[in-house]
């Protein structure tokens, strides 16, 4: 692996550009390089690992027991990538992906590193942009002191830091229990874990139980949950949450089976599961479908994880949540097909080499359906019932405003909603309001998220300065576009 810190030293073009250095991206880049392709792996973070293996080679956490053995397994993925001949650009933001009109069938990517931008060519692209936490809009979730559970985990992994005062963890999903255990082991003062898993989900998930019983999640999940329940104040069946405070968080109120409670706290960590991060694939023009069981928009991909745009594959959780181990395997499979498309191996050889990986993948995905069904968020956390709840954090648009516009103005979808309320038009580009806006419109109009559709996103998908754009080398086409 060759690390790059000066964007000027990147080649003009690569056989394959992989975006994102989580498990899927690391495996895809390593495998493609092993197949003899010229590979660039570009990633926003300073070190490889993505979020799940964040800082696995650089973490200041000395005691390995705090983060658990699953985390340290990421070091093997990084080591394999480091042995490969791929080029690695950390701290590099990819802000656009479009077809290269001068060379049909290939792509152009806009990259920025250290305040300098470049347009790089790619014959094939693998997006391994992973997952983000599902938005969890409750009254007061914009107060300083309220963060996502993932944020606390990132602070622990990358900076060896934990919330300083009384901490409440609220929501549902496997990460919630994992984080509770990790923070407790690191010495954090956890005042309570407020579990919002709807009890009705258990009966829905039971049908998928046989798969789960054969899955590697079972032992792991039970251990996490039992440890969290044994050691911590654990409140299950929570149906409502409100964060309050003046200028910063002071307490969290909750409802559980008709009773209410208030817990004074300095930090509230929210988690309502993870969903594919679709901004990049959406802006690149890839088709997405609403997956009812994962309750999220998911890019449409084939058996080799190629999207509806030929030449762009989407590997890992970005193409549907399957977890870290499945992400690494999916990255590998996607890379084999890139190798075939670029003539490094024929179809039979691709199938032969990918077969054992597919068997592994099948095993890893056992039990996923059970988790999806069990931890599907309760309706009141998908579409906030209280009108004053902020939905679009950037433009401070509330649930009441969105419901009102959908009802009185007859707004049918999230793109039209932008024109009325500006929701989704702030710096996060809809990442934290999109799913909720869709949900509220669908609920108000009596339709489904699938029928309501999602934001149409546009590059740049990440901020890029005017100076960076202005300093890009001019082409004949770009001059002709503005000179009359």
């Amino acid at each position, binding site marked *: 692996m060759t690390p790059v810190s000066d964007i000027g030293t990147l080649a003009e073009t690569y056989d394959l550009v992989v975006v994102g250095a989580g498990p899927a991206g690391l495996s895809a880049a390593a495998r493609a390089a092993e197949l003899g392709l010229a590979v660039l792996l570009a990633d*926003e*973070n*300073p070190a490889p690992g993505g*979020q799940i293996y964040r800082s696995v080679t*650089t*973490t*200041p*956490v*000395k*005691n390995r027991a*705090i983060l658990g053995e699953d985390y340290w397994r990421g070091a093997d993925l990084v080591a394999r990538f480091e042995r490969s001949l791929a080029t690695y650009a950390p*701290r590099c*933001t990819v802000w656009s992906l479009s077809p290269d009109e001068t060379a049909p069938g290939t792509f152009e990517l806009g990259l920025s590193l250290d305040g300098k931008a470049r347009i790089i060519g790619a014959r094939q692209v693998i997006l391994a942009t992973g997952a*983000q*936490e599902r938005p969890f809009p409750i009254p007061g979730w*914009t107060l*300083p*002191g*309220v*963060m*996502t559970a*993932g*944020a606390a985990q*990132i*602070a*622990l992994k*990358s*900076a*060896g*830091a*934990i*919330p*300083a*005062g009384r901490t409440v963890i609220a929501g549902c999903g496997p990460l919630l229990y994992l984080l509770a255990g990790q923070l407790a082991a*690191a*010495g954090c003062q956890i005042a309570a874990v407020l579990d919002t898993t709807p009890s009705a989900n258990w009966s829905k998930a039971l049908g998928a139980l046989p798969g789960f019983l054969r899955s590697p999640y079972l032992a792991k999940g039970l251990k996490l949950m039992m440890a969290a329940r044994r050691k911590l104040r654990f409140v299950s069946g929570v149906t409502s949450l409100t964060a309050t405070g003046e*200028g*910063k968080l002071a307490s969290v109120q909750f409802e559980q089976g008709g009773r209410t409670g208030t817990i004074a706290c*300095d*930090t509230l960590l929210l988690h309502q599961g993870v969903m594919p*991060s679709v901004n990049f694939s959406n802006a690149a023009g890839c088709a997405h479908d609403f997956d009812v069981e994962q309750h999220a928009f998911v890019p449409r991909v084939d058996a080799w994880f190629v999207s509806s745009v030929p030449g762009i594959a989407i590997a890992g959780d970005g193409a549907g949540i399957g977890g870290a181990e499945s992400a690494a395997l999916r990255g590998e499979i996607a890379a084999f097909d890139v190798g075939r498309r670029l003539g490094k191996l024929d179809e039979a050889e691709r199938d032969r080499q990918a077969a054992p990986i597919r068997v592994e993948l099948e095993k890893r995905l056992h039990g996923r359906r059970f988790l999806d069904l069990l931890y599907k968020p309760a309706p009141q956390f998908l579409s906030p019932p209280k009108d004053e709840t902020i939905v679009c*954090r*950037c*433009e*401070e648009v509330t649930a009441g405003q969105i419901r009102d516009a959908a009802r009185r103005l007859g707004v049918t979808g999230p793109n039209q909603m932008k024109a009325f309320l500006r929701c989704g038009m*702030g*710096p*996060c580009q809809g*990442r*934290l309001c999109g799913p909720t806006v869709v949900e509220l419109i669908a609920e108000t109009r009596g339709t489904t998220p699938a029928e309501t559709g999602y934001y149409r996103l546009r590059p740049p998908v*990440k*901020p890029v*300065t005017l100076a960076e754009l202005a300093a890009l080398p001019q082409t004949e086409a770009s001059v002709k576009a503005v000179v009359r």
Partner: protein
Amino acid sequence: MFRPIADRIASGELRFTFDGTPMTARAGDTVAAALLVNGIVACRETPVSDTPRAPYCLMGVCFDCLVVIDGIGNRQGCLVPLAEGMQIETQHGRRHLEDIRS
């Protein structure tokens, strides 16, 4: 708001300022992490209502950790590694007419 865990592997300390106040943080931390372990409650005010915000996701998604770094605004604090001598400032909301007059 955040504190280092008990047995953290030591690395060099970097000096920086936040709104002019000198502070230090561990080399390797991001700007957002450095502010959190220094007890900074809010790093920006919103353009809509001037309410304070703090880092929310720490993974580049939410844009609530926006700060001014060495004079350049709208930087995502969670993605920028801290560097020696950095001058970090609160990102205030949108420009008001009275700011421009003065």
